[in-house]
């Protein structure tokens, strides 16, 4: 049975089940096939309708294929259309029967009526049967030259369909060249647009194997072609405009005058009622002005209003799509939107996914002048009957507090939340108070007084319980009852299902013991005994560790468990800046809605025909890279409140933006970024998934002397020796580049001194050569350079390939490394980065 039937497992009672009906229809069609009686067409229409309605609901009606074809000899266009639809649906799985249709479709392609010619050509190209392609070439060629624009429109997409059935037939017939000619000369804008879409797809796919196609693809971005499209932009339909604008966004103008000309020309597109046109225009504006900071900011100001209008007009679905983009922009430049905060207030009837975006925007735009209003609004939401909404709102308040605005008032409000005595509010707030205390220890008195009044019985959620226990341990000397509360919790050890909470209990009772030994000793003993008998490995290990530590030396235990703590000053960012920039580059696409770059959710062949950094061929999906990033992402997403200890933070500054407290020079990052990801991996691997944050906090405590005690995240890279006389010819390079997956991909910051020495690509080439890294191709002008390097191991013919894109204005380099021997990629990457970072130094 063909797929359509299988997909319909449960048809509702009102729908026919299939077999009997199909054979009925088959009989009736047979009777009608030869009939010339008046009214035949009407009966046929009814039968055809029935067939198509079965097809729609998923009943396999391919059995009547030959009868349908027999009945299709008619001049009734409605019948013809139904027949074409049917044939298009079943031809692929019934290639032999499809042959039956070729005859009448070819005949129709020569019909007098352009409508019939177009329809027939479209159906002919839609058969998707490989061994029939020979019948397509002729009609397609004629179609492209047809005098009627409808037929040309159909033919220009038909070429693309042919390409997907048989690329070689399409290329051999030289159709792309014909399309190119039509694209640049046809009077009909839709024909032009269709030629463009077809060519983009064809050349995009061909570019990996053919240099000529790659050149042709570049040609689409030449000044002449771009200007040709821009000058005709108003002739295009709104949808075709989107395609043109998407192309223009990839154009690199030669100077700023050109940039302004393009922007002036497109200015009125921002007033279009179609959100897709507006967003496509905005993308052009943003991309063009990336290197012009002031203008770029003006663009933000300019696009604000149209975006807000789009958010409030149209269906909720459309406004969600626009709002996601607004969200992205707000996150990039919150200060520009700080006076618009009232637009981000939530309305009661908005779906949760909209409210969530708005809350994040409110959090981002908070500053000295609007924090009071925003927090007041958020506190209203905290009392919301909608629990997820209430939780998100409380988290938002906490985030604003951690941004250091008006902390005083916010702490008061958070404490008021605790007095609301709603379980979910209390739980959420406790977690926040814990984070606040880590950042602002000076508030401990006020907080502890309130927290001390909370009965631990009212706190059930593991995360909240862990937070409460942490506070009990940390502030044991300030909370009169701390030892006794902890003791009663320990008594119920067996009923505590969360390992996370049990881990926290162990640490808290240790801290408490070290501060108030007489009161705690008994409870500590009970806790250690329970911990040693625990079935959970981590709990068991921690209990054992404490036990031995105490046995060895109590003062050492004190130093380990209860060291003086530094206030945490910076939050880990939820996403690395590389990921954010990638999403920004993919503006006006799903990446923005999903908040993920496309490589995380699309497979390579669907990533769009015009991925720019991939001119040496479509990179195969970088599973290694994905594996690298995804766990980190997971940690970050699960634990938005993952506070990094200071030592970790220092290593992470490459990925932290807006870290006001942090002002180390950025070029250090080049060496550290490599260490970042494995480290985050470590966090995610070491903890059982539900136990993320607090457990890692506890880890910090456990290794209270700082991270040096922690196992180093990656083994030190083995010394890698490179062959100084490596050779690789360009063809083998290209071939290798296509075949190998990306083993590592990174963005690194460059030494500004080195960048300033980068007057031309050649300088860097010589430097790299001095370290046995050869360059095979290079190009570009300031500020954008692109290099392809390669290197070989000294003792074996194992090769490394590197694509390195340097933006000298931003002092950034993007690396993609591929290797024959993937296991040594990391070593090579480190070596490469250190060589690169030495560039330009005396």
């Amino acid at each position: 049975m063909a797929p359509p039937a299988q997909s319909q497992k449960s048809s509702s009672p009102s729908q026919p089940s299939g077999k009997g009906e199909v054979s009925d229809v088959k009989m009736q069609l047979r009777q009608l096939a030869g009939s010339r009686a008046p009214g035949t067409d009407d009966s046929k229409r009814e039968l055809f309708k029935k067939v198509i309605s079965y097809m729609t609901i998923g009943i396999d009606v391919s059995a009547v294929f030959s009868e349908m074809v027999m009945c299709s000899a008619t001049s009734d266009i409605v019948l013809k259309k139904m027949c074409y639809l049917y044939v298009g649906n079943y031809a692929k799985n019934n290639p032999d029967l499809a042959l039956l249709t070729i005859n009448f479709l070819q005949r129709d392609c020569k019909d007098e009526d352009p409508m019939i010619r177009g329809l027939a050509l479209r159906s002919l190209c839609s058969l998707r049967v490989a061994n029939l392609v020979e019948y397509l070439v002729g009609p397609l060629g004629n179609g492209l030259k047809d005098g009627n624009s409808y037929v040309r429109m159909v033919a220009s997409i038909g070429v693309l369909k042919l390409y997907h059935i048989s690329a070689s037939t399409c290329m051999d017939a030289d159709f792309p060249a014909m399309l190119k000619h039509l694209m640049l000369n046809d009077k009909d804008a839709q024909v032009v647009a269709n030629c463009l879409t077809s060519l983009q797809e064809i050349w995009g796919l061909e570019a990996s194997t053919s240099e000529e196609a790659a050149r042709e693809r570049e040609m689409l971005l030449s000044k002449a072609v771009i200007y040709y499209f821009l000058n005709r932009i108003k002739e295009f339909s709104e949808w075709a405009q989107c395609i043109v604008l998407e192309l223009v966004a990839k154009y690199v103008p030669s100077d700023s005058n050109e940039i302004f000309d393009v922007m002036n020309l497109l200015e009125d597109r921002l007033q279009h009622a179609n959100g897709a046109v507006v967003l496509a225009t905005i993308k052009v504006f943003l991309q063009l002005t990336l290197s012009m900071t002031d203008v770029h900011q003006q663009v933000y100001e300019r696009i604000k209003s149209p975006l807000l209008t789009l958010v409030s007009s149209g269906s909720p679905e459309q406004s969600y799509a626009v709002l996601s983009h607004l969200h992205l922009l707000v996150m990039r430049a919150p200060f520009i939107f700080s006076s618009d905060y009232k637009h981000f207030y939530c309305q009661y009837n908005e779906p949760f996914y909209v409210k969530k975006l708005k809350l994040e925007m409110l959090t981002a735009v908070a500053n000295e002048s609007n924090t009071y209003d925003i927090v007041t609004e958020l506190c209203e939401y905290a009392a919301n009957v909608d629990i997820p909404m209430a939780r998100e709102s409380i988290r938002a308040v906490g985030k604003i507090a951690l941004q250091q605005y008006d902390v005083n008032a916010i702490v008061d409000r958070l404490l008021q939340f605790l007095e609301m005595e709603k379980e979910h509010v209390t739980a959420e707030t406790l977690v926040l108070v814990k984070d606040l205390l880590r950042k602002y220890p000076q508030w401990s008195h006020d907080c502890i007084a309130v927290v001390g009044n909370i009965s631990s019985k009212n706190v059930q959620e593991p995360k909240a319980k862990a937070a409460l226990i942490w506070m009990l341990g940390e502030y044991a000397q300030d909370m009169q009852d701390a030892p006794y509360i902890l003791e009663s919790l320990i008594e119920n050890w067996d009923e505590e299902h969360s390992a996370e909470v049990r881990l926290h209990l162990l640490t808290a009772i240790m801290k408490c013991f070290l501060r108030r030994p007489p009161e705690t000793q008994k409870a500590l003993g009970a806790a250690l005994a329970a911990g040693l008998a625990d079935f959970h490995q981590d709990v068991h290990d921690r209990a054992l560790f404490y036990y031995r530590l105490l046995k060895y030396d109590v003062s050492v235990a004190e130093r380990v468990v209860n060291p003086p703590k530094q206030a945490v000053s910076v939050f880990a960012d939820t996403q690395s800046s590389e990921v954010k920039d990638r999403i920004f580059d993919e503006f006006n696409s799903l990446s923005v809605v999903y908040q993920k770059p496309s490589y995380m959710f699309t497979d390579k062949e669907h990533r769009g025909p015009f991925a720019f950094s991939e001119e040496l061929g479509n990179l195969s999906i970088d599973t290694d890279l994905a594996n690298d990033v995804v766990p980190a992402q997971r940690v970050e997403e699960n634990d938005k409140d993952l506070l990094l200890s200071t030592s970790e933070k220092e290593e992470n500054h490459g990925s932290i933006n807006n870290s006001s407290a942090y002002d180390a020079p950025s070029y250090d990052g080049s060496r550290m970024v490599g260490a970042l990801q494995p480290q985050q991996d470590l966090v995610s691997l070491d903890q059982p998934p539900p136990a993320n944050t607090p457990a890692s906090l506890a880890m910090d405590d456990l290794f209270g002397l700082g991270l040096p005690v922690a196992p180093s995240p990656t083994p030190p890279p083995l010394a890698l020796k490179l062959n100084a006389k490596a050779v690789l010819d360009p063809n083998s390079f290209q071939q290798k580049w296509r075949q190998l997956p990306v083993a590592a991909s990174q963005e690194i910051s460059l030494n500004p001194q080195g960048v300033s020495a980068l007057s031309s690509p050649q300088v860097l080439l010589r430097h790299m050569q001095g370290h046995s890294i050869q360059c095979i191709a290079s190009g570009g002008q300031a500020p954008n350079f692109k290099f392809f390097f390669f290197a070989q191991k000294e003792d074996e013919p194992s090769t490394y390939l590197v694509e390195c894109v340097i933006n000298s204005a931003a002092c950034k380099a993007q690396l993609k490394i591929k290797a024959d021997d993937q296991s040594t990629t990391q070593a090579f990457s480190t070596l490469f980065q250190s060589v690169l970072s030495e560039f330009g130094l005396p």
Partner: protein
Amino acid sequence: MISQFFVLSQRGDNIVFRDYRGDVQKGSAEVFFRKVKFWKEDDKEEAPPVFNLDGVNYFHVKVVGLLFVATTRNNLSPSLVLELLQRIARVIKDYLGVLSEGSLRKNFVLVYELLDEVMDFGYVQTTSTEVLKSYIFNEPIVVDTDRLPSLGPAALFVQGAKRMPGTAVTKSVVAHEPGGRKREEIFVDIIEKISVTFSSSGYILTSEIDGTIQMKSYLTGNPEIRLALNDDLSIGRGGRSIYDYSGSSGSGSVILDDCNFHESVHLDSFDVDRTLTLAPSDGEFPVMNYRITQEFKPPFRINSLIEEAGPLKAEVILKNYAEFPSSITANTIVVEMPLPTYTTRVNYELEPGAVGQMTDFKESNRRLEWSLKKVISLAAAHW
């Protein structure tokens, strides 16, 4: 490019299913419906309009209870696809007169015809009702409009459709009138959505008007039409903050924060005399969308008083003030109030002599609904 387009009924049946590229499996409609129906990721929240499942991206919009869905494996512009889905729904409505499950089922062949021309191989060709006319050969089968369920005013917000279904505009653009003659008509609607937040003490915290001028033309020959707006209309608020109310009220002038226009609108004389020029093509379209945050007097004011009347009981007094001129009547008003999850019973007491008023406790979503058929302003009377 879009791979498939389909329309599902509320129960998840395929009403139309069109596969454009054949790179997404055929069972996608079922996969999609199951996912949407059992969306659990955020605590029984509704599914977002766009999501990815096993590499397939699903886009959907809800129109009159039907799900219009597109699938793709590519990283497309979400705005483009969602806008397109909405537009397809509108084109279908233009042709069928009425958009409903029944009309779609009766006319699915016509819908397929439309879909064939709207997209080719997943690329949009046209969504203009006018352009499509020359490619479409099926006649619509008109369904009885009387049996259509009323959407009510709440639908205006819930469905996001900014338009009340007027009976006059449920006529197909291609259907022939009985008697073969065509009426020369054009419908222009102005629909405004007013959002106001009051503080508990009755002050206005935020207020915004989102408006649309909607047009539906049945004129033959597409004559040029001029639409004159207020002379004193101004757009943009200069350098001032949007919420700076000082000086903007009282002068009587209308200040739009921002607006956008349909592509058929010419703005040549807009700056001079606030006139829009357009040759309306067939079918329905928004001429202009606008947004106002200027201070204005809201038509209603709601006052609530909540008192604890016992350990397990609360008493709420709701007052609705009509603050519009007595020449205007307001129809079908619904006041909604969310109630705590542990609410078990609600008693109502309407003002004595209240006519055409209804109260209801919607247990499924814990909401109190108070609906009023008709409200006449008596200066500041309340009830």
